């Protein structure tokens, strides 16, 4: 291992890592918000909305992220919509992860016993109030661990953006490797950078889990 090589080239890789963080943040916000919409659709009492939600989840979950990114980046211009490479990548990751996150939310909400809702309504709460004050706080605690998993997957999925010319960490690593033919040094550094990012997210979620523990009291 040539540590001097790593030291010299770390700034170049850090530029890529900054782009990775931007992609991951965009997709994280998109997926967290989009997931709520998906959960609302799939749990809707109106059958057409439910079907729409389920169809979205199946299409997004069952097609590879690479294909989705290619469709958005190379395919949409033919329909007159030209998104930048960055926007295409963030949108594709947000859409796919909305499907997963929506299912996580739904699982969280459905894990709360239906009698709790009935009890809240019996006490005179409005349905929205029961959701906000009784069901959501409990569900959110339960979804934190799977949500953490999903966020880490998002960080790693950002590497796919290199295929549509987004200069993120993996692309920077590939370029450095191409210039120097030093795969071990390059990809060890790249792996450690991804590990750092994922560990930071995992750590934050652990803190959140600790701060809002699940209370088993059904």
């Amino acid at each position, binding site marked *: *291992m040539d540590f001097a090589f790593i030291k010299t080239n770390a700034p170049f890789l850090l530029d890529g890592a900054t782009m990775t963080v931007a992609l991951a943040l965009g997709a994280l916000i998109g997926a967290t918000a989009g997931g709520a919409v998906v959960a609302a659709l799939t749990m809707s009492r109106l059958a057409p909305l439910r079907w729409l939600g389920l169809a979205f989840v199946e299409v997004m979950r069952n097609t590879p992220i690479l294909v989705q990114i290619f469709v958005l980046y*190379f395919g949409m211009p033919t329909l007159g919509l030209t998104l930048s490479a960055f926007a295409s990548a963030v949108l594709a990751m947000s859409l796919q992860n909305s499907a997963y996150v929506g299912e996580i939310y739904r699982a969280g909400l459905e894990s709360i016993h239906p009698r709790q809702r009935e009890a809240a309504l019996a006490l005179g709460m409005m349905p929205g109030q029961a959701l906000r004050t009784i069901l959501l706080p409990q569900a959110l605690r339960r979804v934190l661990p799977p949500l953490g998993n999903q966020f880490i997957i998002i960080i790693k999925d950002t590497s796919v953006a290199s*295929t*549509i*010319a987004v200069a993120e960490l993996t692309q920077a690593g590939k*370029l450095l490797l*191409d210039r120097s*033919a030093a*795969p071990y040094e390059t990809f060890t550094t790249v792996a450690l950078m991804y*590990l750092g990012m994922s560990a930071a997210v995992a750590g934050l979620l652990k803190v959140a889990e600790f701060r809002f523990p699940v209370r088993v009291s059904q």
Partner: protein
Amino acid sequence: MFHRISALVLGLAGCVAGLWLAPASAADSRLETIVKRDKVIVAVSSTARPNGFIDENGKLTGFEVEFARLMAKALVGDPNKIELMTTTVDGRFPAVLSGKADFGISTATIYPDRAVRLAFTRPYIDSSTLVVVPKGSPIKTLADLDSESVVLGSTNSAAMVDRAKLYAPKAKAIFFDTDSAAVLALKSGRSTAWQADSAAANFFVGQSEGAFVVLDGSLGTINNNAIFMKPGDFELWLALDTIVREYVNGSRYGEYAALYKTWFGKEPPPQRPFNQN
């Protein structure tokens, strides 16, 4: 949490140490292994027309793939005693450094930075970089590339990145993993120009039925493309280098010239006399 992270770091360090220590134990020349195995394993590209690509019949072929067969013919006596290992641009060097392939023939330009960690034979072909634009494009000359309205696409290689910065600093440069994706970008209008290896550019334009043209002149200097292998194995290197020399201007020049003509439609540089090498 902390324990989990330490375990991960230790695991990763273990993998790296394994990769690092592995080459130290290989003392024998790989040439013996190849001869004993009676087959060569060569890293080639499958997405770089006309050098290495999958043709309409699903067969991996191209100038470099067929040249790899000529190398196999010289090394083990049969052009079919070969295992073609397809890699992308970024996978080609790890393929030989990790020992998975004996050597690679994959549009690799001899580059001083690379020579520190890779061994190159003498070149089997020279190449230049051409720029392809759609027919009727406002980009008429190489000088027109240096404009903010230009989106210059290419593969994500060090030489391409350097050229984009040098010759078109005002243009927006975008880099793809494969030539195929860079071509797709040009076709879909994502890029307005594509810089590519001369062989790939000429081949693409020839197949495009007039929809695309090559700009006059080449971007930058003439490059040397060569076979690359893991350094430190003199016997294998010498054998490969000698065989390449015999093909490009020695006793097997006829076979090389025929191959060159098949893929590029013209004669290769003439066979040089012995004292002008």
